[in-house]
């Protein structure tokens, strides 16, 4: 079973995907819509409200940010994917060398663990509705009750064992759940809107009056809740653009679009962005705004109770399934990244270890409650390698520099790529530390991409001296 799975998921790991195995647009539409309607959407929407967004800022920012994300897939990631038809890992190995890819895998695996941890946190909030133990509040960084720890442990243990044994089974459940989950999210929004109309006594009979309700009651703007960063139009735009930065600008989805017949098929990513990162975020944020409207002292961002109040048991199932089906492949991917470092340890053991690490992370609400910042850090850490791949593929031939330098020189570390990665992160952290608003963690990855590209070119000029292109 495990070997069969490995074969299935490890197709064409070290060779280009043959044209006969490529897929059309339709194959990617469903994949993206399902993958980006996850448990974490139920945290992100409410956290926007906690960050004090206004109606125009959240709607306009999400529209623009998601558009930029789709364009990043279309013009940065997919054109390379359909030309090289290689996984990111293999392409990186050719550029950076085996040792540097190992370091990249470690960073990627750890990030995936934390992300899976926040998904476990989301699922555990549904357990709290049934067992009534104290759950963490918006400001909590540490676990606050034995019940919470046990709930996360139970959810995490089940997810880990299933990830290790039954990846295919969960993948089947995830496929079945995807269309249902999208509609439940839509339902959350419709129900929340009706409840808002009732509690405010607003008369909504036109688009104008609906907009009035949005501005005055749902996304009112103003100060953020204590401990949260104030979100403006640009924060929302950049967050929506960069929350999947590792996948588009960071090139992780080279592994996905190497199967695309045409580069423009990456427009399918719009299904994930506008269903998951537009509709689902807005729907979840409406439920949280309603909670705050009813009781301003209740600032807890707990997807379980939010969903239960709106849709009853169906809502709870949605929270559990959304967290479970997305945590599962995330743990699996983290396991793959770690296994690349320890190839002799069995896939089962690595996945169980990874799952337990994610479970431990999930016990600490700090990650879920600070998810907006964590997601920005996640993208930033992996982004420089995307810049390296882009520069190596398009710019190096024009400058007479050697592509796939590590493969060419048979070296384990391409120092130009290593310096571009580490120095970019150091510079970006330095920029964030200046405290200037334009260099907040949500924005700094944009100049970071240009810094990484420039560093890679400049250092390669030195390291490649005497090498023929």
């Amino acid at each position, binding site marked *: 079973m495990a070997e069969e799975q490995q074969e299935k998921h490890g197709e064409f790991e070290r060779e280009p995907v043959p044209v006969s195995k490529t897929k059309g647009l339709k194959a990617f539409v469903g994949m993206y819509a399902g993958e980006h309607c996850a448990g974490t959407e139920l945290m992100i929407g409410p956290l926007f409200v906690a960050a004090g967004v206004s109606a125009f800022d959240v709607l306009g920012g999400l529209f623009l940010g998601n558009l930029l994300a789709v364009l990043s897939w279309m013009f940065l990631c997919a054109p390379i994917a359909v030309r090289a038809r290689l996984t990111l890992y293999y392409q990186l190995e050719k550029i950076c060398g085996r040792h540097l890819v190992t370091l990249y895998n470690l960073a990627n695996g750890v990030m995936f663990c934390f992300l899976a941890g926040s998904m476990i946190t989301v699922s555990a909030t549904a357990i709290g509705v049934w067992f009534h133990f104290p759950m963490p509040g918006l400001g909590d960084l540490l676990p606050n009750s034995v019940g919470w720890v046990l709930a996360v442990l139970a959810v995490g243990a089940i997810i880990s064992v299933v990830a290790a044994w039954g990846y295919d089974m969960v993948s089947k459940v995830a496929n079945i759940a995807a269309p249902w989950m999208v509609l439940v999210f839509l*339902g959350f929004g419709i129900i929340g809107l009706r409840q808002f109309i009732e509690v405010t006594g607003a008369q909504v009979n036109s688009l104008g009056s609906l907009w009035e309700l949005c501005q005055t009651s749902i996304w009112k703007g103003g100060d953020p809740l204590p401990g949260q960063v104030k979100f403006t139009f640009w924060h929302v735009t950049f967050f929506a653009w960069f929350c999947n930065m590792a996948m588009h600008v960071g090139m992780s989805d080279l592994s996905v679009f190497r199967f695309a017949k045409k580069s423009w098929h990456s427009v399918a990513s719009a299904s994930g962005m506008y269903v998951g990162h537009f509709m689902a975020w807005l729907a979840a944020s409406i439920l949280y705004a309603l909670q705050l409207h009813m009781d301003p002292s209740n600032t807890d961002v707990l997807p379980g109770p939010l969903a239960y109040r709106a849709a009853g048991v169906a809502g709870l199932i949605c929270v559990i399934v959304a967290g479970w089906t997305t945590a599962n492949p995330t743990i699996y991917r983290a396991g793959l990244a770690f296994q690349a470092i320890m190839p002799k340890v069995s896939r089962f053991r690595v996945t169980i270890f990874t799952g337990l690490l994610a479970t431990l992370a999930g016990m600490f609400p700090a990650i879920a409650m600070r998810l907006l910042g964590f997601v920005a850090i996640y993208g930033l850490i992996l982004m420089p390698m995307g810049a390296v791949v882009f520069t190596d593929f398009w710019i190096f031939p024009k400058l007479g520099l050697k592509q796939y330098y590590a493969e060419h020189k048979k070296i384990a570390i391409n120092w130009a790529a290593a310096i571009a990665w580490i120095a970019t992160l150091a510079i970006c952290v330095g920029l964030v530390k200046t405290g200037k608003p334009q260099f907040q963690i949500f924005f700094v990855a944009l100049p970071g991409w240009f810094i990484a590209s420039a560093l890679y070119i400049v250092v390669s000029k030195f390291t490649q001296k005497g090498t023929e292109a």
Partner: protein
Amino acid sequence: MKKVLEIISYLALALIVVAPSLFYAQKIDLAMNKLLMTSATVVWFATAIFWMGREKKEG
């Protein structure tokens, strides 16, 4: 049989969004909305599992 299950599945899926729409239009109350959404969820999973994602056998 598979076709019948498919139709039932799609009806359940439609109910997931029809129930909140009826609640929005004030045709049903929240308790009824929750009941309909939960019932539709059970029906969707119980029926879709028999046909969704199953490849058609050739020959």
